């Protein structure tokens, strides 16, 4: 039996699967944040290029990622931090929707800045 040749997307997904399987929660968080920042950049770029389809796809991915982050919050394990994270994610959701509705590139650039600052705070916290 000949093995089916994997499509490039499947190869990437399999690679990601192996990579993620070895992740701790912190690694997962940083990976999700990085992916999210990429989606915000894609949204801003799509607005710049007036590419509505690309903008819709990037926004949809971003909302899915933020939704996943929100749903992963555990308010019993770390109440104060989870509450602050929920505030942050809700505000981010609102900013994404506003930026999408008005094709406002600056909203997405602000999201890039704010999420990058939080990733930096994660990293500083990790190194301290």
């Amino acid at each position, binding site marked *: 039996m000949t093995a089916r040749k994997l499509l490039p*997307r499947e190869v*990437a*997904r399999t690679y*990601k*699967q192996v990579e993620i*399987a070895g992740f*701790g*929660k*912190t690694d*997962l*968080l940083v990976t*999700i944040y990085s*992916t999210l920042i990429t989606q915000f950049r894609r949204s801003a770029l799509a607005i710049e290029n007036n590419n*509505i389809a690309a903008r*819709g796809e990037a*926004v*949809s*991915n971003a*909302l*899915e*990622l*933020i*939704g*996943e*982050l*929100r*749903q*992963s*919050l*555990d*308010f*019993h*394990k*770390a*109440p*104060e*931090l989870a*509450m*602050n*994270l*929920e*505030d*942050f994610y*809700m*505000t981010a*959701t*609102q900013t*994404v*929707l*506003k930026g*999408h509705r008005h*094709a406002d590139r600056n909203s997405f650039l*602000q999201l890039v800045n704010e999420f990058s*600052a*939080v990733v930096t*705070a*994660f990293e*500083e*916290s990790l190194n*301290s």
Partner: protein
Amino acid sequence: MLQVSTGRLINRASDGPALSAMLSRLDAEIRSSAQASRNIGDAMSLGAVADAGAQSVTENVQRIRELSVQAANDTLTDGDRQAIQQEINSLRSGIDQIASSTNFNQRNLLDGSFTNQNIQVGTGSADSVNVSIGSLTSGALGLENIDVSTSANARAAITSSSDALETTLSVRSQVGSFQNSMESTASNLMSSRIQSSATRSSWGDTDFAEASTNLQMSLLRSSTSLAALAHYNASENSILNLFR
């Protein structure tokens, strides 16, 4: 230990049943509202696609109207009118092409088939918005048989194209109003969730920089492992699905 690291007194149900119940309710609310946010995002994408298509149709109709005005001028020759008719035919084909190819998630938006569609925009069963988008085909716009071969026909074409322009503007206004309703629904979704959380005594307009600063300070007071703990329910499998 957890009490010290979180800075909160409530960590177990026995510490504060009311707050604990509220936190559990918040968990459930978040699951529903995260999905509603995604639906609203998709609905906004749908609105943006429909609006872009409708804008292109409007530009074509405007050009048809300009050409009809030009053709109504008696100083033109038959040859001139033929050339104008050819351009009008091409613009009309363009309109039909846009109407048949403007789609979202394989659903046509501008051919009159997108009617009476429900978008779930909230966490309750009644929280849905019904949307219909009018047809922008040349037939629906009354431009199917537009003819400028004589100055009299061209004058009739001015009336037809003016009516068509009104129709396209009306559809665009329909789409714009849908997009506005999505925007206000998004903002209502946030405020209803915020009110029901009952954890904040007051909440003004959302300030992203403030939310970000609060979070960063909270992170600095805690540790990365606590941030991971706060996202305790993050699962590798569900996250994997998001990498495309």
